[in-house]
C-alpha cells in the first residue's frame, strides 16, 4: 500500500491551488455562500471554467484527442477535492467533467460529440440531469416520462422533479421510456430551449436552483438527440451512476468544516475541553474513513477493476461522515451557526441535512452493500 501522492500529483494540486487563489475574488466566500446554484456562482463559473480550461486544468483526465490532459483518475479526483473545498466555483459544470462528458465520449455519435464536447471542454455550458420523477426517485423502473416515435424523431411527455440547475442549463441528460418493458429506457440530450419544456424552481433548503420541476409537454426532438441505441438507456445509466455516486469528493467540505471548527473553538477557549476534542477526533476519523474508501474506488479505476459494492460502501461512508461532522457542529458550534460568519461550518451543517438523499438514498446503498458486498439474500 502507498498513501502518498506522486510529485506530479502534488505539483498539479499546487498548480490548482495557485490558480484558484488568483481566480477567486477576496470576498468569494461571502458572495458565493458556497452555493453552486446561486446566480453569483453560476455567473462566476461562466468565466471561471473557460479560464480553468485555458490553464489546462478543467479536464486533466480526459483523453488528449478530446482536449484532455490524458492524466490518470487521481488528477480528476484532486481537481474535485480542490474545487469542492472552495464551494465548487465550477457550479454544476462539475457534472460535465465527471460523468456527462465521459458518457458522451463513450456512447455518443460523432455528431453528438462534435456538438457537445467542445462546449464542455470550453467550460461554457451547463447541463442538468433528468432522472427523478414525482413517482420515481431511487426507483428508475417506475419512470413515467415517455418518448414516442414520431416521424424521424420523438415526442416526449412527462415530468421531472428535483432537477438541479434546470433553470439555467442549456441541455438536459434526460431519461424517457421508449418501450413497453420496465427496462426500455433511452437517454436523450435535450436542449432546454426546446418548445414544450417548462421549468419551475422549487425553493429549497439546499440552496438556490438546486431543485426544480421540469414539465415536458409534446416536446419534439430529433433522433439525433438520442444517446446510444433505443432502449439501451438502462446500461448507460448504470455506468453513469457508478461514476456519479462518488463523483464529487464531498467529504472535503466536512474536512474543511472541522478545520474551521477547531479554529473557532480555539478562539472561544473551548478547544481544550476533553469531550469537544474527542468529538473532533471521532468526526475527523469518520471523514478520513470516507476519503480512504473513495480513494479505493479511484485506485480501482486506475487498475480497471469494474466497480462493485465498494462504491456503495464509499457512498454510505459519506453519509456517515457528513452526519458525524454535522452533528458535532450542531451540538458544539451553535453560536457559530447562528452568527453565520463561518461559511464552511454553515455549509457543512446544511449539507449534512440532505446527505444520504442524492444519488440514491443511503438506505439503498445499504441494500446494495448487503446484497452485493455481503451476498445476503434479497430482502424483498
Amino acid at each position, binding site marked *: 500500500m502507498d498513501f502518498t501522492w506522486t510529485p506530479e500529483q502534488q505539483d498539479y494540486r499546487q498548480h490548482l491551488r495557485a490558480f484558484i487563489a488568483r481566480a477567486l475574488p477576496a470576498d468569494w466566500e461571502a458572495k458565493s455562500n458556497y452555493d453552486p446554484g446561486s446566480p453569483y456562482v453560476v455567473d462566476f463559473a461562466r468565466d471561471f471554467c473557460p479560464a480553468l480550461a485555458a490553464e489546462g486544468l478543467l479536464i486533466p483526465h480526459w483523453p488528449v484527442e478530446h482536449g484532455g490532459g490524458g492524466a490518470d483518475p487521481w488528477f480528476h479526483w484532486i481537481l474535485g477535492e480542490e474545487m469542492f473545498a472552495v464551494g465548487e466555483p465550477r457550479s454544476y459544470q462539475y457534472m460535465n467533467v465527471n460523468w456527462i462528458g465521459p458518457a458522451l465520449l463513450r456512447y455518443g455519435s460523432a455528431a453528438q460529440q462534435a456538438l457537445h464536447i467542445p462546449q464542455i471542454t470550453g467550460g461554457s455550458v451547463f447541463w442538468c440531469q433528468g432522472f427523478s420523477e414525482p413517482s420515481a426517485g431511487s426507483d428508475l423502473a*417506475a419512470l413515467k416520462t415517455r418518448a414516442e416515435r414520431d416521424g424521424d424523431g420523438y415526442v416526449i411527455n412527462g415530468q421531472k422533479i428535483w432537477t438541479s440547475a434546470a433553470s439555467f442549463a442549456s441541455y438536459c441528460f434526460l431519461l424517457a421510456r421508449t418501450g413497453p418493458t420496465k427496462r426500455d429506457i433511452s437517454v436523450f440530450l435535450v436542449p432546454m430551449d426546446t418548445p414544450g419544456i417548462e421549468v419551475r424552481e422549487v425553493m429549497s433548503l439546499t440552496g438556490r436552483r438546486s431543485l426544480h420541476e421540469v414539465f415536458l409537454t409534446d416536446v419534439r426532438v430529433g433522433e439525433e438527440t438520442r444517446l446510444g441505441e433505443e432502449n439501451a438507456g438502462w446500461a448507460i445509466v448504470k455506468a453513469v451512476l457508478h461514476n456519479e455516486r462518488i463523483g464529487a469528493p464531498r467529504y472535503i467540505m466536512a474536512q474543511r468544516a472541522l478545520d474551521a471548527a477547531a479554529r473557532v473553538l480555539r478562539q472561544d477557549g473551548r478547544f481544550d475541553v476533553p469531550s469537544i476534542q474527542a468529538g473532533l477526533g471521532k468526526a475527523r476519523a469518520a471523514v478520513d474513513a470516507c476519503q480512504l474508501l473513495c480513494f479505493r474506488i479511484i485506485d480501482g479505476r486506475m487498475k480497471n477493476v469494474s466497480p462493485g459494492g465498494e462504491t456503495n460502501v464509499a457512498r454510505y461512508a459519506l453519509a456517515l461522515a457528513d452526519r458525524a461532522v454535522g452533528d458535532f457542529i450542531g451540538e458544539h458550534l451553535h453560536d457559530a451557526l447562528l452568527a*453565520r460568519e463561518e461559511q464552511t461550518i454553515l455549509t457543512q451543517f446544511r449539507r449534512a441535512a440532505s446527505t444520504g438523499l442524492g444519488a440514491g438514498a443511503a438506505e439503498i446503498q445499504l441494500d446494495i452493500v448487503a446484497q452485493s458486498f455481503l451476498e445476503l439474500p434479497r430482502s424483498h
Partner: protein
Amino acid sequence: MDLDLSSDQRMLLSAIEPLLAQHRQLPQPAAPDYVVVGGDLDAALDAAGFYGDADGFDLERADAALLLDQIAQCPFAVPAMASLTVAPALGIALPRPIALAESLDPRVPIRFLAQSRTLLVAQGEQVLALDLEGAEIVPQDTIFAYPFARLASYPADALRPLAGVNAQQLRDGWALGLTFEILGALRAAHALTVDYVKQRHQFKRAIGAFQAVQHRLAEGATHIEALHYLAHRAAIGGDSAEIALATSYAQQHVPQIVYDCHQFHGAMGLTLEYVLHHWTYKLKALAGELGGASVQGRRAAQLQWSEAA
C-alpha cells in the same frame, strides 16, 4: 403514580383545541419562507388569557408545559415559551412577548428578540430584565425556522436586576420550556413522516413497508414516548436534576429523528413549500440551546450524584 393526563389537563386541551385547529397548517399556497412567525396564534393565545393575565388562566407549570407541547406541534414560530414556563416561575408581571438570553453579548443572536417587549437575562446568579422599548435590535438571518436578532444597544435605564429571583429559576423554566418545545416539534415531524411513508411508494410498495424504515421510525417513536414522560415528570414538581435530564434526553435524540424524517421524505422534505422543515429547523435550533445535550446531561449528573449523595 398516575401516568395519564389529569382531567384538568384534558379540559385544557379541549379548551385550546379550537384555537390551535386554525393554526395546524401553513396558509396555502405557502410562501416559501425559512421562518413563519405565528403572530396571530400568539395574539389569540394572549387574548384568550393563556399567558396568565389577571382575568386569564392561572396555569400550573405542568399545564403550561403541556400547552407548549401543543403549540410546538403547529408549524409556526410562536414566542410563547418564556411566558408559559419562565415568567410565572419568577412571579413578576412583565410585558410580553419575552425573549431569553444567557448574556447581553451583542454578538449572540437571541431567539424571538425582535418580536419581544422584554428580554430576560440569566447572568451569573442574577436575573436581569431589559425593557426592549428603546433598544436597537438587528435581525439576524439564520438557517433555522425561528426568528433571531442581536441586541445592538439599549438605554442604560432600561435594564434592571429582578430582586428575589434566582437565575437558576430562569434556567430551569427555560430548560423545561425548551424540552416541551422539542417534544411538540418532534411529535409533529415524526407523525408527518409516518403519514408520508404510508402514502409514498417506491419499488412498488409503501416506503413505510420497508423494515429498515419501520425500525428507525419505531425507535424514534420510543424516544418520543419516553420524552413525553420524562418531560412531564420534570414539569410536575420535578427538581433541577429531573429537568436537566429531560432536556438532555430531548436534545440528544433530535439529530437522529430529524435525520430520519428528512431521509424518509427524500427531496420533498428539503423544499420550502413543504411543512417539514418548519419543525426540523426549529429542532436543530433547540438542540443547541442552553449548551446542548452534553451540557444538560452533565448538569443532570452533577445534581444526581452530588458529593453529598
